[in-house]
């Protein structure tokens, strides 16, 4: 194979080595570059998304610069700037609390996707796992009335995480035992989770609250609520879930890079055949990784329920997007811990900065604001996916080849 040792451009242009060329295809080389590519690519992606978003704002007849300034102020990030006047500070603090409250579940659902990616799995099921976690948290939070604060919170959060883990574990088990494609099974599990919620909390459902005509659960007990350490608990101050998310980020990094388990996960993700040769069980890793992903996503559900929602309505279930945004968070964050932190913060800021509540109505009409939110989020996702998704699909296509061949030769 002389092409292998020629300069990179050589192999790529000369048609590249065939399917037997192992990891030396141009897609693999590109993927390796992206994995280690640093912060330039994701930063560029964000800049491009904002430029394109600015064009959209311009088309609606508004000034992009003043709109973006308003969005920025809406995120509360101006609280961090030393020149913000003391008159603006209280409002900025409230906004920043909102941004960080949104960031908490985004970090966790982002990790749920990133961890799977590192093992070569595409977890589209963050949403379903998040919802199952929310259901468990609502149930545990609204049961056990009179239980002491700390054990109640711990039990509710843990049950939620386990519910998410079990839910994702179904997809992991199917992948590990019969090789079912996790993309398909997690998508289907998302729908299943939504309808389970509609049943549980809908009119006449077993967990519907005490108001007979409203499809909402009971409120969780006061003792199950997370402690608010910044701002007014009555005005949705920032709860301690942010520390849970930060600890999860650190745990993600440490486990992945410093434990033998993480070494196995990465080996399976990069080359399952070499992992098998190294004595690892690929199936066991798939199952384990999916369960851990579900654990993260379930925890995200718990943080939202115990931190600020306190109840769940079938409405919320149907419109919730947090789990799906986790995919964008992980992609933009390049499946790393630090990347996930910053991209979760970006998406959290976008969510709160463009919300009707936070965006200055004199700059951009509140009616349009929520659409603008979606447009900008969509653009970021689009630009992120444009490069990373293509690479991911190319790689998974390459992995599928031997499978397909085996199938054909059997028939």
């Amino acid at each position, binding site marked *: 194979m002389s092409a292998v040792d*020629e300069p990179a451009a050589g192999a790529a242009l000369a048609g590249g080595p065939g399917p037997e060329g192992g990891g030396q295809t141009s897609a693999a080389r590109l993927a390796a570059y992206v994995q280690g590519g640093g912060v330039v690519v994701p930063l560029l992606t964000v800049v491009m998304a904002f430029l394109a978003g600015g064009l959209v704002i311009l088309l609606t007849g508004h000034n992009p610069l003043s709109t973006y300034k308003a969005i920025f102020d809406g995120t509360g990030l101006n609280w961090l700037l030393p020149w913000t006047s003391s008159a603006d500070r209280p409002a900025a603090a409230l906004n920043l609390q909102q941004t960080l409250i949104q960031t908490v579940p985004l970090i966790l659902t982002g990790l749920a996707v990133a961890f799977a990616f590192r093992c070569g799995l595409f977890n589209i099921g963050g949403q379903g796992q998040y919802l199952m976690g929310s259901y468990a948290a609502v149930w545990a939070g609204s049961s056990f009335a009179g239980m002491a604060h700390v054990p109640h919170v711990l039990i509710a959060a843990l049950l939620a995480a386990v519910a998410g883990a079990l839910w994702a574990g179904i997809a992991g088990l199917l992948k590990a035992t019969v090789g079912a494609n996790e993309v398909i099974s997690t998508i289907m599990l998302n729908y299943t989770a939504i309808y389970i919620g509609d049943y549980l909390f809908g009119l006449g459902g077993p967990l519907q609250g005490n108001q007979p005509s409203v499809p909402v659960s009971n409120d969780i007990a006061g003792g199950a609520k997370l402690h608010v350490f910044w701002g007014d608990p009555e005005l949705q101050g920032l709860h301690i879930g942010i520390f849970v998310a930060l600890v999860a980020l650190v745990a993600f990094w440490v486990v992945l890079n410093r434990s033998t388990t993480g070494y196995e996960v990465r080996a399976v993700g990069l*080359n399952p055949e070499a992992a098998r*040769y190294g004595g690892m069980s690929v199936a066991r890793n798939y199952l384990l990784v999916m369960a851990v992903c579900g654990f993260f996503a379930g925890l995200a559900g718990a943080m939202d329920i115990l931190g600020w929602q306190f109840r769940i309505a079938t409405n919320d279930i149907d419109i919730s997007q947090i789990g799906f945004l986790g995919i964008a968070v992980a992609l933009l964050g390049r499946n790393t811990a630090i990347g996930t932190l910053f991209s979760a913060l970006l998406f959290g800021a976008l969510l709160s900065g463009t919300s009707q509540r936070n965006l200055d109505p004199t700059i951009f009409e509140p009616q349009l604001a929520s659409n603008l939110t979606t447009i900008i989020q969509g653009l970021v996702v689009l630009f992120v996916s444009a490069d990373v998704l293509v690479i991911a699909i190319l790689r998974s296509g390459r992995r599928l080849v031997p499978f397909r061949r085996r199938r054909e030769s059997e028939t």
Partner: protein
Amino acid sequence: MERALELRGITKRFGRIVANEGVDFDLQAGEVHALLGENGAGKSTLMSILYGLYRPDEGEIRVDGERVTIDSPRHAIDLGIGMVHQHFMLIPVMTVAENIVLADEPRSAGGLLDVQAADARVRELSDRFGLAVNPDAVVEDVSVGQQQRVEILKALYREARILVLDEPTAVLTAQETQDLFRVLRALRDDGKAIVFISHKLGEVLDIADRVTVLRRGKRVDTVSTEGATEGSLARLMVGRDVLLRVDKAPLERREPILEIRDLHVRDDRDLPAVQGVDLTVHAGEIVALAGVDGNGQSELIEAITGLRGVEQGEIAVEGRDRTGAGARDMVAAGVSHIAEDRHRRGLVLNFSIAENLALREYRTPKLSRHGWLSPRKMVTRARSLIREFDVRGGEPETPAAALSGGNQQKCVIAREIACNPRVLVAAQPTRGLDVGAIEFVHRRLVAERDAGRGILLMSLESEEVRSLADRILVIYEGRIVGEFPPDASEEELGIAMTGGRRREAA
């Protein structure tokens, strides 16, 4: 003789890397001109320039004495240049004839493909040069050797006068190689000009009239094969004297350490692949498993190394039954494995060298404790193995993908020997390596043998088998059909490998 092709002062740079530097090359009608060089010497780049895939930064190309600028493969074809790539560019589900006429189809009156005309033309070309291919066969059903001939026919169909073959023998068996050479001689005698790219010295001496040797992008010399020897060519290629024959201490056969009894193994399609193999490897000997690819050797090796289930039979290491043990348990039992395909199995290319070197022992106290890796220990160990095995071009943190093939293989060998195995199973350990790296691998295997390890070598190169082995076992259709001493003749082995004759163990 007339000059069909002339390359003058060709220089090609990729960023800071100079792939070709002032290379001269000329080709006459009616000759086979070999282009010889190690991996990365610039052979493929030079031929890609000729085929219009790259534009040279400097230099000129003359075809039939006329200066040309080749800017696309289409243009190269129009100039009468045909290329047979190492990896075939065929459509598996189409017939031989359909593949050959693709993009240049004969059409009937209604504008439809004229199948009969295509068949007739293919048959005529095939008969003329003795290629013996059936135009109606579907490509995926014919052998690799046949597919290669389809590629040659494709070029001839487009009226190529200059034929470039990029490492054509890499995928062929010894018999197929001889068949290919017969075809090439017929083409040469017909006045075609042939460029034969290779790094196998014996083949170059066998088929070529002249040899141009490239080293690090530069032309070292162009010599006639008359009077040249493998040694003289190797010296030109590597730039120093190369030990082609391996020096071995006399056989000091000790206790048996790997014993296989009546082993049966099934392949991926659940068909019997290994059907009752008995073999024993003693400490201090190299046992070679010779055979044509696809006769069960891969499945046998996977079973021995714990990567494939055993249907029936027994595998014992140092007298203890290890049948059914997994890959990790086999390593622990003292069986290391230099995998057949280092990219697919032997390495995680995006892992660093240090991480790759940990693949076998990441769970042992050498590298981790209570489930936590020690990066410091991993790097320290990688550094010492890099030094001991002379891995060049990388630090412990360098991704394995950035290394050359030879240095990647050194990493695999370093890791497998570092486990301190009793038996080293080496499957095609020199596949795709250049002369210098092959020499290193051979020496190391012999050194491990001399140090008292048992070595089971699987190789498709009969040259390698005969120069390294103390005993040669020939495998055919999943059975050991004969045992030979290392001085067995190529013919004897060839006959056994194709199932011609059974010879009971000596």
